[in-house]
């Protein structure tokens, strides 16, 4: 078991290193292949209307004329030991986990991401719980009452949920539920520590919108898994023991169904934690996703790079957690190597 954990941890770290390398290459190497000169690259790091001197200064400051390996080394060194940028006369300090520095907003990337993390995390966790519980519940009921009106209705709604993008459902919800009918307050973020009630109130609609999309998938997956499980021989054994149908369904059939669901939940949650781009944008929540959108519209490379790495980090972490939880759910995975 210990080796299993260590191996998984090692694999996770390795994966992060590879992601860093690939992301770095996308932003620093690929543009050169596409024929960008060092000067053009440097332009992206300077403010608007740069002078040739400013560009030259940027090239030197960022070391853009250095070999790519050196640049990557510097970047990685920055993550562990921090970095300094000479800027005009002064030196800019980018503290230890330095994932870059935005020369458009004159801010370090990492603290900016951290500042927005509570918003995104609140959104992701709240929505995650709703879609997980809601999706599974609907899926179980649908499977047990297969072919009933509920089943057909639920699956039709689920199909709609999977097909409709958030900028559609979200805007629709805003228009009707908030503005026309006033069922929900205007979405927004209030820190939980300040006002737990306001936190829920402000995030409820974004949660539901984001959860709708995912719950639909989970409901379909659960239903399919349950139908398969209910046909297994061990379900017949459970019935032959004299167990009630409720126990047969909730104890014996649900558990094997949950195994694959936990896996996709880990992936989905990691993805959303790295920035629920559309949801944050639609509901004007100032989270990591929105930060990324701003950076992309402004071609703010260091921020894009930082946010991408951060997103990858969450996916790797969530997967790692799933890998570690998995043997608890399915004893057959409890290998002894």
């Amino acid at each position, binding site marked *: 078991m210990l080796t299993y954990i260590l191996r998984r941890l090692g694999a996770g770290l390795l994966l992060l290193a590879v992601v860093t390398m690939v992301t770095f290459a996308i932003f620093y190497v690929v543009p050169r292949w596409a024929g960008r000169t060092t000067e053009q690259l440097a332009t992206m790091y300077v403010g608007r209307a740069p002078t040739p001197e400013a560009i030259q200064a940027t090239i030197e400051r960022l070391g853009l004329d250095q070999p790519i390996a050196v640049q990557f080394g510097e970047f990685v060194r920055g993550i562990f030991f921090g970095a300094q940028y000479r800027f005009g006369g002064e030196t800019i300090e980018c503290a230890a986990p330095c994932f870059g520095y935005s020369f458009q907003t004159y801010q370090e990337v990492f603290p900016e991401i951290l500042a927005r993390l509570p918003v995104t995390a609140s959104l992701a966790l709240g929505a995650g719980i709703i879609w997980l519980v809601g999706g599974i519940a609907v899926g179980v009921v649908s499977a047990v009452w297969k072919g009933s009106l509920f089943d057909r209705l639920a699956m039709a709604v689920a199909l709609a949920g999977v097909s409709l993008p958030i900028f559609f459902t979200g805007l629709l919800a805003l228009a009707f539920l908030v503005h026309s009918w006033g069922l929900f307050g205007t979405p927004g973020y209030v820190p939980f520590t300040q006002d737990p009630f306001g936190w829920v109130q402000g995030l409820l609609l974004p949660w539901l919108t984001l959860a709708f999309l995912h719950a639909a998938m989970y409901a379909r997956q659960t239903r399919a898994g349950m139908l398969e499980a209910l046909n297994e021989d*061990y379900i017949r054994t459970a019935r032959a023991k*004299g167990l009630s149908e409720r126990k047969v369904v909730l104890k014996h059939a649900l*558990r*094997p169904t949950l195994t694959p669901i936990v896996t996709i939940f880990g992936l989905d949650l990691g993805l959303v934690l790295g920035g629920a781009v559309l949801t944050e944008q639609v509901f004007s929540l100032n989270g990591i996703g929105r930060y990324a959108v701003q950076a992309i519209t402004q071609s703010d490379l260091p921020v894009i790079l930082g946010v991408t790495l951060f997103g990858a980090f969450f996916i790797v972490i969530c997967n790692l957690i799933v890998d570690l939880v998995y043997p608890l759910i*399915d004893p*057959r995975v409890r290998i002894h190597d």
Partner: protein
Amino acid sequence: MSESAPADTVVRVDDLRVTFPTMDGDVHAVKGLSFEVPAGGALGIVGESGSGKSVTSMALMGLHRGTRAEITGGIEVVGNDVVAASDKRLRQMRGNDIAMVFQDPMQSLHPQYTIGDQLIEALRVHRSQVSRSGARERAIESLERVGIPEPAKRINSYPHEFSGGMRQRVLIAMGLMCDPKVLLADEPTTALDVTVQAQILDLLDELRRDLNMGLILVSHDLAVVAGSVDEVVVMRHGRAVERGDVRDVLSRPEHPYTRALLDAVPRVEVSRAQRRAQDRADRAERADKEGGGEAPRPATEGIEESTGGASAFQAFVPAEEGGGKGEPLLRVNDLAQSFKVRGGMWGRSSDFWAVKDVGFELYQGETLGIVGESGSGKSTLSRMIMRLLEPTAGTVEFQGRDITHLPERHLRPLRKQIQMVFQNPYSSLNPRLTIGESIGTALKVQGERDGKKIRTRVQSLLERVGLEPHHYNRFPHAFSGGQRQRVAIARALILKPKLIICDEPVSALDVSTQDQVLRLLSELQDDFGLTYIFVAHDLAVVRQVSDRVAVMRKGEVVEMGDSDSIYEAPRSDYTKQLLTAAPVLDPDEARRLRAERVRQRAAG
């Protein structure tokens, strides 16, 4: 029917009818079945798949509730009217008054709960007043009762940590948790090896006597029930064609179907020579009836036509009886295969020898039978001969050529000489290819481009294995198990191989289908001079098809020789043990063997 007092009868089935409404009209799975089981008595229900025996056992448990099945007639189990009882009443009955043991122990336990949890649950659902620790003790007792070693430790294990036989014991232990009056075992040993099968049957018999429990044993194999029941019901197409005392039914069967069924059971005392003579005589008779043609009909015509003459088979049709003349077709020397097994906390790996130092020679037209239980290395051995696995040590020589480490490129032309027929006809045919495509693919792989030629060859071969040429475009799901195995045989034959390795070719089939497939294999051997390696765990089957037999255990050949001498005068203890485990049709002989097994076990 005898008018016994209700207290003495634990199961009474009266004119049971089970009907499944389908789109194409009603399917009558059971049509008027009646039987009784007295307290502590044992009843065997025997029939082929589709005879309605499993439907009957499901109906006894009331497990048809919630499905489309319509049940009429009377089912009374320990005073419960199963047909009319409320769902709640039925649940109180299941597991408490009547417990069921299912066919496939691998699938019948929940993979994600410990066996302890599953046993405890079985008790506490009916006895909620028993504490968890009390239930746990009871579970340990029950596991001990069915012969699980170290039950106090093993109770925390998961099903996948047990072998098939052990899982079946766990299922039986689960059935015993509430001291039921009746144990219903539906094909409890079909998925198990002979020796394990004998152990499980012995256990059921012992439990029945010690606990005075009624036993209903459902099986497709008369030999399985022979030694374990007092009364037997033979079912066919949903009806009981014969019912009576087991001795009477087996020694003086009245119904022709029972007689046919008895004839189909492979008997361990019938030798290869007898069987072959019988098969050939039957064939000749059939050929005569069909009007003309000398027998055996050389059925190579279709194949020769399409290749335009010189068939690889012609040289040796008819085959000479398995003799040791000339160069052997296959020579295996000190063959061994090891696998790395990881173990321990730090992943130290050790070598596990699946096959060790196996050597033999096999001549043209001969059949070598390999018997052994699962895990004995017989499948690994056949894979090495097929060169699906590269041997760790030793050599395989085919037609005098060393193919042990031949690279795949050079191996490919040789592949058509050695073909294989697999155990499970359901999963060894691609469900998305028509059987014609499945069979014809091999020809394409070997370079045949002419689609028409392939088609005619496949069709003539289909005819040869007892199917119809117009089956070409059908998909595997349209065929029964026996027909699928015929398809698999055709697929192996299409390349005109010299050697066919049959890996448990009949173990998934009913006895009568089994008999037909064995006949086919024997006819094909006569016609094409085929050489077989016949791998199986059924001793009787192996004896009837093999000239020589190798008995394998834990990767080694413990005994090898001429099949009659192995069966009549076994030298190794293991072979003796296997032979006493083989099910026999004579109830008295079965009881004698059971006593013999008990003695062997006591002796260690």
